């Protein structure tokens, strides 16, 4: 490949990765002398049509020998990809633009107050076992997560679905306790997948029987899974591979090596330290898509010194966000503004000034709190997020300049969420984020919530949360969520230094849609059904 060819190839790569639009591409290509051919080159990169065939081999992190096919327990990438993107479907899916669109549902109609939702199901969809999907399956699959005996990770989401009843074999009616304009997003939760119910309204999850693009052939938890194409899949242009072989590779360096040596066609979660080097390798693309994943440092605002908002503001100004993104994320991310709504989400407060590393302001806030210096302890383990101990150490170094002495207490990653997070006054934490502002604020910031890790309670915020949920007027909704973000940023108990991009890698032999979903890694955890071999 000549140098110019190589440059064009790189540009095309960026288009395919979704990092460049048509105008940018043509501008760049024209600058290189490809005046006449530039538009054609673009369309070549962007409009590759899916072809059938091939065995898709993917390396995943986040696998465990205790994994199971019951989606109630799924929490990490191996199982989410296998279940949601592979053998099963939900009623609603999130598309590449972050919108909730019907999947096994056909349509979702709200009442005027958004309290009652009528969901029509697609007809004639078959499970791998041959059984036809209907309202009974949907109800059994959703009820699985509810009730006193549920241990599902989606228990609170499922409980918020209100009363579920069927209206004929192909229609569900949801009667919510209060209006929720974001209701379709709730049904897109990766736990709320559809399985086939037996006569007693129970689903045998372990069989892996679903409506999904691939049929489970074998599954060895924490090791591997093998699936073959579902010939009757209902989506067109999907389920392109003949077979899918998923391999659990929890060690990040091993995953990178497997990708570099071509033992797999794609990997999830690149090791950020070495991702720039993998990017240089020909035949492999590093794909980054910005999503909702963010790292946080929640403080218990009921306890001194965090009960003083001045101290919280001092600490928010004492972290060097730029350095955080550049060092911990190697640039694969964006600055956080101490609230959990990312810039690619609806209702993001774009006009809220970006909080900077500001030693003087930090000192000023300390003074307001009546302090000249501050000694605080923070607990961190790499269980919180990858590189958390290093990252927190970096925070501690930066804060020193403002007279804030942060002692990093490295704790055991074993049982971190049980022993440390929300138990000690200040710790490191990770949120994968939620597709809507309402959902994220409800789960992580609502007063008295199970996971409100700052134990924060703010009257105005609570008021807005209820108002925003049922508001169907977009402009008013936007206003409400912007105000909420401002309140959380200026008065909340959580430091949000950054949003981390989803960074995966894939062989260039793979074809991908021009725009990739950012809600999860690997095209919204759906590369298995959406991608193909060129």
């Amino acid at each position, binding site marked *: 490949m000549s140098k110019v060819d190589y440059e064009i190839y790189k540009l095309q790569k960026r288009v395919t990765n979704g990092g460049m639009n048509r105008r940018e591409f043509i501008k760049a290509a024209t600058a290189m002398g490809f005046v006449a051919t530039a538009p054609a080159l673009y369309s070549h990169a962007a409009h590759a049509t899916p072809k059938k065939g091939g065995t898709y081999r993917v390396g995943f992190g986040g696998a465990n020998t205790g994994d199971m096919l019951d989606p109630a327990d799924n929490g990490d990438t191996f199982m989410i990809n296998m279940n949601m993107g592979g053998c099963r479907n939900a009623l609603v899916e999130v598309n590449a633009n972050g919108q909730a669109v019907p999947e096994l549902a056909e349509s979702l109609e709200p009442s005027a107050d958004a309290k009652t939702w009528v969901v029509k199901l697609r007809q004639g969809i078959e499970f791998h076992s041959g059984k036809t999907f209907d309202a009974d399956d949907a109800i059994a699959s959703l009820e699985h997560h509810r009730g006193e005996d549920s241990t599902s990770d989606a228990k609170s989401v499922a409980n918020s679905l209100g009363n579920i009843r069927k209206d004929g074999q192909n229609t569900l009616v949801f009667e919510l306790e209060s209006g929720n304009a974001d209701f379709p997003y709730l049904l897109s939760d990766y736990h709320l997948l559809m399985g086939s119910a037996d006569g007693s309204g129970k689903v045998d999850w372990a069989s892996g029987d679903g409506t999904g693009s691939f049929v489970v052939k074998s599954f060895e938890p924490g090791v591997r899974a093998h699936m073959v194409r579902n010939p009757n899949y209902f989506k067109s242009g999907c389920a392109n591979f003949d077979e899918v072989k998923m391999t659990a590779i929890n060690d990040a*360096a091993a995953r990178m090596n497997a990708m570099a040596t071509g033992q797999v066609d794609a990997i999830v979660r690149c090791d950020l330290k070495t991702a720039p080097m993998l990017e240089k390798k020909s035949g492999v693309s590093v794909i980054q898509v910005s999503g909702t994943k963010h790292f946080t440092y929640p403080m218990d605002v009921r306890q001194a010194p965090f009960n003083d908002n001045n101290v919280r503001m001092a600490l928010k100004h004492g972290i060097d966000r730029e350095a955080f993104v550049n060092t911990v994320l190697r640039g694969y991310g964006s600055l956080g503004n101490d609230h959990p709504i990312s810039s690619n989400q609806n209702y993001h407060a774009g006009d809220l000034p970006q909080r900077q590393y500001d030693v003087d302001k930090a000192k000023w806030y300390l003074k307001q709190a009546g302090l000249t210096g501050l000694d605080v302890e923070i607990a961190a383990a790499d269980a919180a997020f990858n590189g958390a101990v290093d990252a927190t150490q970096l925070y501690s170094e930066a804060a020193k300049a403002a007279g804030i002495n942060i002692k990093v207490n490295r704790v055991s990653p074993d049982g971190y969420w049980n022993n440390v997070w929300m138990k000690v006054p200040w710790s490191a934490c990770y949120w994968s984020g939620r597709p809507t502002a309402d959902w994220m604020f409800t789960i992580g910031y609502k007063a008295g919530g199970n996971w409100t890790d700052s134990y924060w309670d703010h009257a105005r915020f609570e008021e807005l949360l209820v108002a925003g949920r049922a508001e169907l007027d977009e402009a008013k909704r936007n206003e409400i969520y912007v105000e909420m973000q401002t309140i959380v940023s200026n008065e909340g108990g959580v430091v949000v230094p950054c949003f981390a991009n989803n960074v995966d890698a894939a062989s260039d032999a793979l074809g991908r849609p021009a725009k990739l979903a950012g809600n999860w890694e690997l095209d919204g955890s759906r590369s298995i059904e959406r991608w193909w071999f060129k």
Partner: protein
Amino acid sequence: MNWASRFGVFVVSAFGFCAIFAPWLAPYGQSQVVGDVWEPLFGEFIFGTDQIGRDMLSMLIYGARNMIALALLTTACAFGLGSLLGFLAATMRGWVDQVLSRFVDIVISIPTLIFALIVLSSTGTSVLALVTVIAIIYAMPVYRIARAVAMDIEVMEFVEAARLRGEGLWWIMRKEILPNALTPLAAEFGLRFCFVFLLISGLSFLGLGLQPPLADWGAMVRGNADGIAWGYMHPLVPATCIALLTIGINLIVDSAVQKASGLRDDQ
């Protein structure tokens, strides 16, 4: 002293010197972020910077201080405990031997990392806890070897003679068994010393290890190890330090063994 042991003494004292005078020798603090991530070797920073931009040279120097002390202390404890119990079992035999040996069987058959994980998760990773846990873990194999060696010696004529003379247990262990068991034990000591580094770096694989901001060589290898497949030679620097120190200690041990066993250098 031959050239090898001289080299050993030189290496060990050089590291010792670094350890003692670390604050004066190191150009930066051990946790200070001074540059970009993975600045190249032999550039502005002689050994480059690590995965979050700290000066590798400074970390190595402070690491020498933290690690040599830790490794010496734990190895000494492990050997004291292990060989004492091993000799005791070999000389007393009977139920003492059985109880000790079976106990050691139990502890040793729990994978080291799991043992450390279970204990350190409850106690926290303070230096005291680390020393105790590693010393206990490494006392077990030392016990096995000490017992095996002592068993062989215990049946020798001179031990029997001492027993007939009416010498006490302690006297026999100290005067008859210890000197004769020293060679294999010393060889073991030299190796076990570097195993401490290995265990600590293994612990950092599980997310345990020394508390920050203390620099340690094992964690330095671990933190930078993923770069090696991509041409970043940074992890080789702390690895080389561990290897050099191990070689140094072992060369000294070898020559001491040589002397103790009464062999002349020229055979």
